[in-house]
Each structure stands twice: as structure tokens, then as C-alpha cells.
């Protein structure tokens, strides 16, 4: 399925959207760009660490609320559109810890109404009640050991989740290389899932190594093949994050709305599709990011075997 068709079919105004990836790895940028091009708005974004994928959607004015553990880009700094929107009172944030968000997805994926956790007890994460939330949590004594209390958190089941992975077959059997973040729980908890992947592989590849399948097709609504679909974040095993472009993004985002609008126009709105965007990044740079991920030390060892 094309990314534009997948987004048109499964992402609607006002939806709660599960955000995959984390920080500088496997953010579903191709799908996010398409959501911006289609102008789907009033979104609630949910996840653990929401980074550049959330920030670009916030910067495009499409997000009303985030339910998450963090918004930042670690070494690359804060998520500036997010920060500005919160400080202006334009974006509501319902704060959790990462373990707490995982507990909510875990309840969702198992068809349970809530899940106990030890996280957040005693902290102001419990005091913070966003508008419209009737009951964020319940403190409950363990019925078998009344001195031992836990916090109950309601299940989180996104209307749609968007994730970028390494490989998937046409039916939606998902292979994720490397760290999994909160994605297995979030994907299985979601009512619909758009998976973009580096490679669509034949079903036979999945069936010959079924132990490698992280998510079977029953949970997946749309499969989109988009090489470099996480750029400027990395896809483990395929290409490194693009530090030059992330710095440029951060520079434009930190300057304010006007400069960020220029970024959006140049790279997203004026791009017909994600391949058009990748052409602006350039083949030379993309190949370089692939080489870096493979751990190839470019200059030093070139030809050293022949000239000894």
C-alpha cells in the first residue's frame, strides 16, 4: 500500500496515535510527513519517548495533546516545537514515566482494563491531572498483602499506531532488528497499525525463520515499503542517524515558528512524497549513512590489504 493511501484510510482527525521508535532510532518519518501533507489534525500522540516525529507534527500544528514519558532529542537538545507549544499553553501534556506507559500498553494488548505499577507513587506525576481526565490513577492495596500498595493505570489502546521497522512481508508479519522499545506492547494494543519498513520481504522469508517475527500479521493494518523511511533518525542495521540534518532541523525549530514553517515547506509540504524529500537529502549522504551503520571505517583502512 502507498503511504498516502495508508494514512488516508487509517489516520483521521482527532485520533489517538501511537508513536513508535525512540529518540534517534526508527522514527516513522515517512508516515509523519504524509500526515502533515494530508493535514490530519487534533491528534493525541501517545508513547514513551516522543522525539522528532512528535516535534514535527506539533510544529505543523496538528497535535492537541501528548500522553508520554518524555519529549526530547538527548544530545541534540530539547524538542523545540513541543516546548514552545507547551509554554504557550497550546499543547496539553499528560505526563507519565516510561514504565507507566508500558504498563498502560500492556493492559491494552492483553484486553485488560488496567494494570498495576509501582511507578509514579509519591511523585507529582500523580498530582498532574490534565483537563478531561476523570481519574488518572487509583491507589490500591494488594488484596493478598494489604501493606503493599500499587498504582492502577487504565489501558491505553491507540486508534492507530505508526511504526517504522526493518522488514515486513506483504501480509504484515513484522521483523524488528535491535532494540524494541515499547513497540511490541503498543502495536498489539492498537486498533489499527501502519507499518513502514525498509524492505518488504516475501512471505517465505518469514515462514522459514518464524522465531524472528516480532509481530504477526493479525495486528497490522497496512504495510508500506519506504527505504530510508526513518530519516533523519537511524534504522538499526541499515543506516545511521543523520546528525547534520537533525542539527539543521533543531536549528530551524529552535528559532521559532517562522523559521520552522520554512523547514516544513521546503522538506515536507513542497515534497510530493518521501522519495522527493530523500532526493533533497541526496543519494551521496544516504549511502554515507549506510556505510557508517555498517561500521566501515571510511578512509583509514581502504585498500590496506593490497598496499602492505
Amino acid at each position: 500500500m502507498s503511504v498516502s493511501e495508508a494514512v488516508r484510510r487509517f489516520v483521521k482527525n482527532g485520533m489517538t496515535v501511537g508513536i513508535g521508535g525512540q529518540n534517534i532510532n526508527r522514527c516513522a518519518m515517512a508516515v509523519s510527513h504524509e500526515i502533515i501533507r494530508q493535514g490530519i489534525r487534533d491528534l493525541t500522540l501517545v508513547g514513551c519517548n516522543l522525539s522528532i516525529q512528535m516535534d514535527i507534527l506539533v510544529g505543523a500544528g496538528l497535535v492537541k495533546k501528548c500522553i508520554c514519558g518524555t519529549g526530547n532529542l538527548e544530545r541534540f537538545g530539547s524538542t523545540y516545537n513541543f516546548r514552545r507549544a507547551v509554554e504557550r499553553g497550546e499543547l496539553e501534556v499528560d505526563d507519565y514515566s516510561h514504565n507507566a506507559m508500558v504498563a498502560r500498553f500492556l493492559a491494552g494488548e492483553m484486553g485488560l482494563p488496567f494494570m498495576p505499577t509501582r511507578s509514579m507513587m509519591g511523585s507529582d506525576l500523580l498530582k498532574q491531572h490534565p483537563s478531561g481526565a476523570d481519574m488518572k490513577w487509583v491507589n490500591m492495596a494488594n488484596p493478598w498483602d494489604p501493606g503493599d500498595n500499587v498504582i492502577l493505570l487504565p489501558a491505553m489502546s491507540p486508534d492507530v499506531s505508526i511504526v517504522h521497522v526493518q522488514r515486513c512481508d506483504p501480509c504484515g508479519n513484522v521483523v524488528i532488528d535491535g532494540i524494541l522499545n515499547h513497540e511490541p506492547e503498543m502495536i498489539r494494543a492498537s486498533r489499527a497499525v501502519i507499518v513502514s519498513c525498509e524492505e518488504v520481504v516475501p512471505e517465505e522469508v518469514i515462514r522459514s525463520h518464524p522465531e524472528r517475527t516480532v509481530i504477526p500479521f493479525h495486528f497490522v493494518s497496512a504495510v508500506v515499503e519506504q527505504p530510508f523511511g526513518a530519516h533523519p533518525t537511524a534504522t538499526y542495521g541499515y543506516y545511521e542517524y543523520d546528525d547534520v540534518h537533525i542539527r539543521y532541523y533543531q536549528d530551524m525549530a529552535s528559532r521559532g515558528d517562522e523559521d520552522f514553517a520554512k523547514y516544513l515547506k521546503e522538506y515536507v509540504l513542497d515534497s510530493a512524497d518521501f522519495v522527493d524529500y530523500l532526493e533533497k537529502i541526496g543519494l551521496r549522504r544516504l549511502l554515507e549513512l549506510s556505510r557508517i551503520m555498517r561500521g566501515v571505517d571510511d578512509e583509514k583502512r581502504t585498500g590496506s590489504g593490497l598496499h602492505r
Partner: protein
Amino acid sequence: MMKREQVPAYTDDFTEEELMVIEAARYIKNDYLVIVGTGLPMIASQFAQRTHAPMASFIVESGPVDPQLLPVPISVTDRKIANRAVRLGSTREVMSCMLQRGLVDLGFIGGAQIDIFGNINSSYIGDWRGPRVRLPGSGGANDIATNCQRILIITRHEKRRFPEKVDFITSPGYLDGLDGRRKAGLKVTKPDITLVTELAVMEIDKNVGKFRLAKLMPQTTVEEVLHNTGFRPLIDGDIDEVKKPTLEQIRILRTEIDPEGIYLKKRTG
């Protein structure tokens, strides 16, 4: 040739950050399971593993279990932090099945504000309903502060960073005092909390629930620490001086752990 006596060669050639890292690493024991993020905590953990704690094991919130880090990861999702792990798992495996389960010996946390009870704010400056500054948020910090027996904080020493009371408790220290954690229902009621800065080391007094000034960095005074601290830590008894690093320790940091000076800025001038 004459046999030389093995005396560690202490050096004055070190930066504040280098000594902070070396001092923090001293709290990591050889048999510890440590949960780390990036930045100075990761540098300290790697340094401990490279020197006195070779059997110490790391986990990272995004899923890596016991990786052998490549210099120098800049994110918890960097391939360099996943290098040669025994497993690349999920947030749930690390944060729920290992951390919440109670398997982790020590965790690192950072924050914009830390108060006298060891409470940490990484969420909001000002009132959360209309904040002056929105900070990143908890991430795994609340989970680490909740579930670890030992918590290490490495941070710059600034008055505004150490207020009497944080604007928002993202991660619980002793909350409002000695009994705070028990009253709130936290299972770990009296964790060790250690704060390492370029001026001093403070440790929570587990009989009071407040920070006590434990050690001074070389060439700092109690007055200087108090002048730069918004709360007044407990001060009594002996205050040790943090040992200067050895030449070998500095060599390891500069050539093996952070050769490009990504987190440990090079000395200028």
C-alpha cells in the same frame, strides 16, 4: 634496572567533569547491575567497568542488556549503546522485568532541579498548569528513583539547580522527609542518594532524609558550596576531600572512554 615502587601517580591535570565522573564511578561496585542513560552517567559507568568493576553489568531503558559500549553513544537508542549486548530487548523487559522487579543495584538520574530531600524535577519550571519552562519529562527517571536501592546524580553545581523545594517532583527522593517514601507507598523506603558536582559530594542521611555534605572537591570550601546551594545541607563531623585522579585514570578517560571529548570537554588553554 632498578625496580620502581608502584605508587599511583596523582595528577593535577584534570577537568572538573573528569573528576566528577571518576568520583561517581567509585560508587559502582564490581557485582552491580546498573541502569544507565547517556552523558556523564554512561561515561562514569564505562569507566568503572574499565577499572575497578569489570564485572558490573549495564542495562538501558530502550532494551539493551549488558552491552559492551562503543565510544561514545549520544542516545539510549544509539547503535553504540547496543553494541555486543547479550540481548536487545524492550522497554518492558528492562524497566518492568528488571528494574521494577528489583534486580537493579544502582541507577543514574539527572534533572534541572534537585532539592534537599533528593527529589528531582525534570518536567516543569514554574507551575505545571502554566509552566515557564517545559523540560523533557520523566522518561525512565521516575522508575529508577522509585525502584533502585542506590541513586547517583551527576550534575553542575548551581544555586538555582538546588532549591529548597523542587517545582515538580518528577522522581521521588525522600519526598517531604524521612518517612515520606513509606507514607507514599514506595517499596524502597530508604535508598542511598548521592549527588556528585564539581564542588562537592552530598549523600542523603538515611536517619534524617536530607542531604549531608560528605566530601569536598579539591580546592573548594564549605562556604563556596553553601554559597552555590539553594538549600542548606546538613554539615557536621568530618568532611573528606575527594581524591585527585591518577595519571592512568585520566589516560583511560581521554583515550578510551571519550576520545573525541563528546561529553568530557577538552581542557582549553
